[in-house]
């Protein structure tokens, strides 16, 4: 059972992702904005993330590169809009493998009873961009096993 909920509605160029973390909001915010912490969690374990720049302020630029075990490099960059705070981080996001397809990402942090709900809304320029991003932008060459159709339909009903 996945704790990270991802919703991609048909026909709408958005992906909404929510996840609860067992930590206070300020700490989760630090993990999202301090490069030395970010590289310790962003991406699956077999990817190595290197932060090129992470200028966490209004108009500040960010860029990181992820390397897979085969040595392929994937660069990502963007700009922060408004001063990032534990209330919200607003930033653009562009995968360098598909330049020109820019997405706008808003991440909010809501603390309740010692846990923090992180909600990220990714807005794409078009539905085709969103579908393409999911299909290729986070490409890892993972070979997915076939899933049983009934489980799949159950999930689609929920999603």
């Amino acid at each position, binding site marked *: 059972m996945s704790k990270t909920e991802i919703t991609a509605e048909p026909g709408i160029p958005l992906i909404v992702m929510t996840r609860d973390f*067992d930590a206070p909001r300020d700490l989760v915010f630090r993990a999202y904005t301090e490069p030395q912490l970010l590289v310790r969690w962003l991406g*699956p374990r077999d990817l190595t993330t290197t932060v090129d720049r992470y200028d966490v302020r209004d108009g500040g630029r960010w860029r990181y590169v992820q390397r897979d075990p085969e040595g392929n490099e994937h660069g990502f960059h963007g700009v922060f809009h408004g001063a990032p705070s534990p209330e919200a981080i607003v930033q653009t996001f562009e995968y360098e493998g598909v330049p020109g397809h820019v997405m706008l990402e808003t991440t909010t942090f809501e603390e309740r009873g010692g846990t923090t709900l992180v909600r990220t809304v990714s807005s794409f320029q078009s539905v085709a961009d969103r579908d393409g991003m999911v299909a290729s932008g986070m490409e890892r060459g993972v070979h997915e096993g076939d899933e049983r159709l009934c489980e799949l339909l159950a999930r689609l009903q929920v999603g």
Partner: protein
Amino acid sequence: MAADRLSLVFGALADPTRRAILTRLTEGEATVAELAAPFRVSQPAISRHLKVLEAAGLISRSRRATARLSRLEAEPLREVTTWLARYQRFWDESHERLDDLLAALQAADQGGHNE
């Protein structure tokens, strides 16, 4: 899968009646009358849903005597699942790592040696 085909599949899956039809077809082929039975909608309405599913490649249709049989085609569904599963896996694994990191940072704070 091409993005436009993905949109067709998503569009077809967006409707609860069509998802219920697909679920029914996992049990085997069915006629329009059989598919319409559990719903409070007319057979022509079911036929319209079947056309959408057929256009998305989710079902194929054949004839047996005077009845039209619908049959589930699983491949596009598998492709859609793979599409989201890869993205889901990326974030699942990232967030599990973040869980571990947050736990380590809090333990370090409590131990008095802040990172």
